[in-house]
């Protein structure tokens, strides 16, 4: 079996290399048959990798403990679903997942466009297969999941395995890695189209139109992956938070930030023909950050407490990144004349400039996070001393950035293209701004004196009100013409321009997320030893220890603490945090108990018995507004899905071209008319 898997991977590598050569030679020599054979090689790669993945999964589920990978990530008593997810529980397998997903995407792209873009497609194939070849090479020659355990010349069957890391035996971990990888891997597609358009010297931006939906889909997967990871950290790791600016988390956030910037600046290119070079840079950065993220998470460079750049696959990734970045930079510089901007910036108070600042700020945040994550490497190179920075650094830089972004989220969509005046701004933003200030004053009077929290709530209100007003005005205009009620009007409105109103919903989701983040400012926590019958007070909550019990099943031993919880004297029932000791991996884990409510979560972690065994050590947290983070995610998801539905009205964007700039200030255009879908 393992021989079949290894052979399939080896063949997949050969076919990927053939696909690169075939499509490049086919494109250069104008030999269509070569390009077509390269396309078929792409399908073959998918078939071969599917076989390899099937072999690995079968071995995991059947428990073939002769294989090193199976012995490392699975054991007999593990539930079947985790035997399956052990596919990506270790390095070799997760690289196989990456490669398999990329081959799936590649096959879909090549199939969808088999009769389109005859000049670009060979290059798209070449770029995709170069990436594919790199990952398949790693699986075939560096980190194969198909190795068997051997002693001398004999194969050893260890009988039972180590089991999947118990921390990963949790439902979000079943879908988190594939989601994140779907996001990471998917960005190879827009990147491949961008490179293809540079190679073939396309003057237009057809690559942007073709890849818009891909970009959205991958962005959605990235968002889902990141938030599932946060949800997992919150429910499993037991430290009461969901985001710790850990290098692995940062690695997943970096490409998300550049992808978000790309999604915005793409509109500038579509509507105004501006920022063409910038978009190339963004799509390339996102792709390389995705590779870099895989490298950070998968090379073991960060889990190692010592060194940053060790591990067997590190050098390969560094080489791939260096060559790829240098090649892309050369290509962009070489094709600058095809990327000329079609119009110019006219005013600081304009839609264009809000996009520009949105990009600037997102990139600054990305750079700061990258800098902080790599600080130990940079400081060692410069001063010879290894120095790290911690969560406060990231918060200090990113909180102001987040708040400024929130402001732009409110202002950007309503400000006019080209130029706007203070007068029209006042008209558009009076009520949102007034509500924001009102909320902030109200909270201040109610005793909230945390500066950032007040600013955050103010801006959240501001953005929410602008979005609601947009929906309301539009729906009313439709309603007065067609006689539909407000709700039907809103649905009609959204359907007419899904991209715009879906986007507003995403913004609203981000607002909800920010409300959740802001709750962090009001956290409470306490760590105590509690004997049976003793009580603990935290915030409004009182917890009384009722007793402990313990037991065992095949997979783990457990001991459970039961607490009777009340809030302001009102009985809330019991909570039972649990501590488990996994037999196969000999690792303890905590199963925290969380009482989730819209206003605040009560979070209890049982850290184990005290030294004398008579008391229980528990950590308790009151986390206000955390649920808003998860709700915000659903709103973002729905908004993104709406963006992908085709609009009812076919949209065309006539580009405004600058013929000259007036010497005097011309009165600004009228306020945006909401019943026309000009946006």
């Amino acid at each position, binding site marked *: 079996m*393992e021989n079949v898997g290894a052979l399939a991977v080896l063949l997949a590598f050969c076919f990927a290399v053939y696909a690169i050569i075939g499509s490049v030679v086919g494109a250069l020599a104008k030999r269509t048959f070569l390009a077509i054979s390269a396309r078929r090689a792409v399908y073959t790669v998918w078939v071969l990798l599917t076989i390899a993945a099937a072999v690995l999964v079968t071995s995991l589920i059947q428990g073939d403990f002769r294989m*090193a990978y199976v012995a490392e990530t699975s054991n007999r008593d593990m539930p079947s679903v985790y035997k399956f997810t052990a596919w990506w529980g270790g390095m070799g397998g997760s690289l196989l997942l990456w490669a398999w997903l990329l081959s799936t995407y590649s096959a879909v792209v090549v199939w969808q466009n088999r009769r389109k873009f005859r000049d670009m497609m060979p290059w798209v194939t070449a770029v995709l297969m170069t990436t594919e070849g790199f990952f398949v090479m790693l699986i075939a020659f560096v980190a194969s999941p198909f190795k068997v*355990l051997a002693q*001398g010349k004999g194969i050893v069957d260890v009988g039972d395995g180590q089991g999947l890391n118990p921390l990963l035996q949790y439902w979000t971990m079943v879908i988190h890695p594939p989601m994140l990888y779907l996001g990471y891997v998917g960005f190879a597609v827009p990147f491949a189209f961008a490179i293809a358009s540079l190679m073939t010297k396309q003057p237009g931006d057809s690559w942007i139109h073709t890849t818009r939906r891909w970009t959205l889909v991958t962005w959605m997967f990235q968002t889902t992956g990141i938030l599932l990871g946060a949800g997992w950290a919150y429910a499993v790791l037991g430290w009461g938070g969901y985001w710790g600016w850990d290098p692995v988390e940062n690695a997943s956030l970096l490409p998300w930030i550049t992808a978000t910037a790309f999604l915005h600046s793409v509109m500038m290119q579509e509507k105004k023909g501006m920022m063409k070079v910038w978009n190339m840079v963004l799509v390339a950065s996102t792709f390389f950050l995705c590779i870099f993220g895989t490298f950070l998470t998968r090379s073991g460079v960060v889990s190692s*407490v010592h060194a940053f750049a060790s591990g067997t696959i590190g050098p390969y990734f560094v080489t791939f990144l260096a060559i790829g970045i240098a090649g892309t930079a050369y290509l962009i510089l070489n094709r600058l004349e095809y990327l000329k901007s079609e119009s110019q910036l006219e*005013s600081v108070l304009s839609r264009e400039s809000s996009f520009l600042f949105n990009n600037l700020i997102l990139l600054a945040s990305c750079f700061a996070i990258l*800098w902080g994550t790599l600080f130990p490497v940079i400081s060692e190179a410069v001063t010879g001393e290894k120095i790290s920075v911690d969560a406060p*650094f990231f918060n200090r830089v990113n909180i*102001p950035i987040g708040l400024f972004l929130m402001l732009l989220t409110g202002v950007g969509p309503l400000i006019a293209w080209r130029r706007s005046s203070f007068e029209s701004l006042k008209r558009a933003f009076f009520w949102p701004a007034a509500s924001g200030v009102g909320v902030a004053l109200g909270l201040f009077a109610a005793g909230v004196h945390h500066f950032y929290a007040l600013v955050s709530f103010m801006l959240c209100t501001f953005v929410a009100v602008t979005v609601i007003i947009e929906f309301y005005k539009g729906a009313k205009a439709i309603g007065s013409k067609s006689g539909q009620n407000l709700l039907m009007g809103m649905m009609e409105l959204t359907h007419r321009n899904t991209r715009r109103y879906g986007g507003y919903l995403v913004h609203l989701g981000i607002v909800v997320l920010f409300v959740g983040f802001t709750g962090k400012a009001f956290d409470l926590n306490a760590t105590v030893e509690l004997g049976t019958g003793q009580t603990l007070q935290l915030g409004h909550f009182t917890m009384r220890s009722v007793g402990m019990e313990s037991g065992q099943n095949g997979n783990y031993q457990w001991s459970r603490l039961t607490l009777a919880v009340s809030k302001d004297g009102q009985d809330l029932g019991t909570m039972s945090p649990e501590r488990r000791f996994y037999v196969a991996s000999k690792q303890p884990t905590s199963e925290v108990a969380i009482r989730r409510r819209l206003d605040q979560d009560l979070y209890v972690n049982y850290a184990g018995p005290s030294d004398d065994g008579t008391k229980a050590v528990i950590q308790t947290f009151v986390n206000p507004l955390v649920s808003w983070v998860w709700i915000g995610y659903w709103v973002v998801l729905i908004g993104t899905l709406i963006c992908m539905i085709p609009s009812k009205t076919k949209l065309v964007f006539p580009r405004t071209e600058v013929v000259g700039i007036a010497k005097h200030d011309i009165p600004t255009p009228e306020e945006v008319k909401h019943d026309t879908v000009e946006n």
Partner: protein
Amino acid sequence: MNNYWKFGTLTVAILGVLAWLAVGGVKETQTYFKTIPEVRVMGDQAQVKRLRVTGWVKPGSISHQGGNVQFMMVDAEAGGNDHMAVVYSGIDPLPDTFKDHAQAVAEGKLDANGVFHATKIQAKCASKYEAQVPQGNAAASHTGI
């Protein structure tokens, strides 16, 4: 070109503020990676700077007292000569991997008596594989296809 001046000024102002915040953030949280012998070499400096010390948990030395956890950290997995007493009083629960023989990273400051006050502990299990495959096979476990 008036517009480009305006944009330039705004951009520089924004980036300037962020750079200022970043520099402050670095100064506030920068932590030096050290091993126990390296801490000894630092002398007085060791008590001023925030440190991140790597070592191994001495078997049997972990004890809980009140909210605090005390243990001895040694400079080599096999034992070693250089010991350092560590008191952990952070709010985060200790990682599940924190136990005897584990490789640990303690973050915090050294006091004048040579006791290390940690606010954060990270730990990594001693390599898992050797425990399962019979002795002498560890090196061979990665051969074959």
